Structure formats: C-alpha cells, structure tokens
C-alpha cells in the first residue's frame, strides 16, 4: 500500500516524463498505400471496397 498524499506529491513533483505529449499526441506520420495494396485491402474489405479503394482513374483527354 502507499500513502496517497505522498504519492500524489512525489509524482507531481518528480516525474520527468513528457506526459503532456503522450496525452496530446501529434498525428502520426502516415504513408498512403500504393494502388496494389489498396486493391488487396478492397478485396479483404468486402463492402468497404468503395471507400478503401484508390481513386478511380479518369480517362485522359485526347487531342
């Protein structure tokens, strides 16, 4: 068991961990999937295929 008062005081004064960074994290660096991975995800995802697939290729204008 521990003394609540002493623990609170000690923790508040002594802890050297950047707790605020852990509580309010920045968004993690992300890497967007390439087309092949997205296609695999779409196959796994079933109904989620529409949203999880990569953007639909658009035809290029000719001439």
């Amino acid at each position, binding site marked *: 068991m521990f003394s*609540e008062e002493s623990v609170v005081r000690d923790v*508040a004064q002594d802890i050297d*961990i950047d707790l605020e960074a852990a509580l309010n994290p920045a968004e*993690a660096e992300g890497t967007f999937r390439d087309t092949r991975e997205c296609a695999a995800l779409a196959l*796994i*995802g079933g109904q*989620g295929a529409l949203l999880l697939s990569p953007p639909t290729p658009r035809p290029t204008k000719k001439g």
Partner: protein
Amino acid sequence: MSQSGLPPLTGAVRDLAHEVVSALRGGGHLAGSTALADDELGLAAVRVLGADVLLPATLAGYSLSPERVAAFRTATLAFPAAPGAAPVTAWSHWGMRRALRTLSGPDEDPALPDTGEPGASWLHSLPWQRFTHQLAVLGALALPGLPSEVATTAALRPVDLARGFVRAVRRRDWLQAAGAARWLALLDGVPDTLGLDTGLDFVLLMSDDDPRVALQAHAARHIRDERLLDEGLRA
C-alpha cells in the same frame, strides 16, 4: 514489465493496455483482480490510458478490485489537467473523473469535485482530418451511456468520421483508425458502404498486435455487438 526497445512510458502503457484487452476478451478476471503499478511510471501509464483502464467494468460490467480502483483514483489525483492544458488533456481527465463516479456511486469525492465538462467548442470548426484525429485521441469517451459535448459533436459528423477512418487506414495510422472506429460503432448515420466490421478486422490484422490498437478495436466491437443486439431485440 516494460517492453524492450520502447520508451519506458510507452512500454508501460502498452503493458497496461494488454491487461485491459485480456480482461475484455477473457471475462474480466485477469486485469480486474490484479493491482495497478503504484510507482511513478505505472501511475503515468494509467493517466495516459485514462478511463479505459476501467473499461472491463464500465463497458463490460466486470468487477474490479478495490485496489485497482484506488490506484486509478490516485493517478487521477496525481495528474490533473493544468490550467491551459490542451482540450484533449482536459477531456481525458474529465473522463477519468466520470469513470470513478460511475463506479463509486453518486456521492461526490471531495478530492475530485465535479467541475463540469471542459467545453468542446474547439472541435466544431476542425476539418474532418483533424476532427478525426482529436476524437480518436479521445476514444475513451466513446462509451454507451456517457453523454458529453464531445459525443454530441461527434454525432453531428458521422460521415466526416467515416472519411477520417478511411484516411487513417490508408495512412496506416492504426491507432487513429481504431479510435475512430470506436466512435463510429457508437454513432447513427454511418454509411453502410464503409464496411466497419471488415475494416476493424483489417486494422487488427495490420497493427502487429499493438495492444493500444487492440484495446480500441475490441471496445469498438463490444459497442457494435451490443448495439446490434439491442436493435435485434427491438425488431
């Protein structure tokens, strides 16, 4: 036991998250009966995981040992949100106080008076990407029967959250994806085309057994299963 190769706090949080997931999946007897570490690192880990430390009780109804609840209270006292703290920090502390009150009954704890909700105006104008990120950080507040201004705001933007979930999956940000999924499991108006169930399976598969991701994902599944059961009973 800390995990090698990780910063001490990160390892302690993962260990604690693993306990909670084990309790959720295994009937509550494991984490519900073991004491929380009461050293500085252990208490800081409790503060980071927040109200989710009590999830086996608050979500699944399992009993927790008085020692575990007492250590949770100590962490809540030890790490209040400082004046001017980020909104998510203030809200996570609010969530811890609410969880304690849920378990301890209506009598106010004199050391933790009810100071009301921190306010959620910062959420209203956020673009959907940042909105999803902030809500994912506050995944511990996504609980049935826990009204808050954050939950009210989330309920107004289910499609934004669905877009944020997909974005997080495509960026391989599994923790954000799982946190967003937990909110989506709670909300009405989520597009059927999202495929939340299979998306959750995919997040769990790809997250390399990260216990923090597993915690959010299993909480999402639990919430979703309960909703489907309720809807089935009403039909």
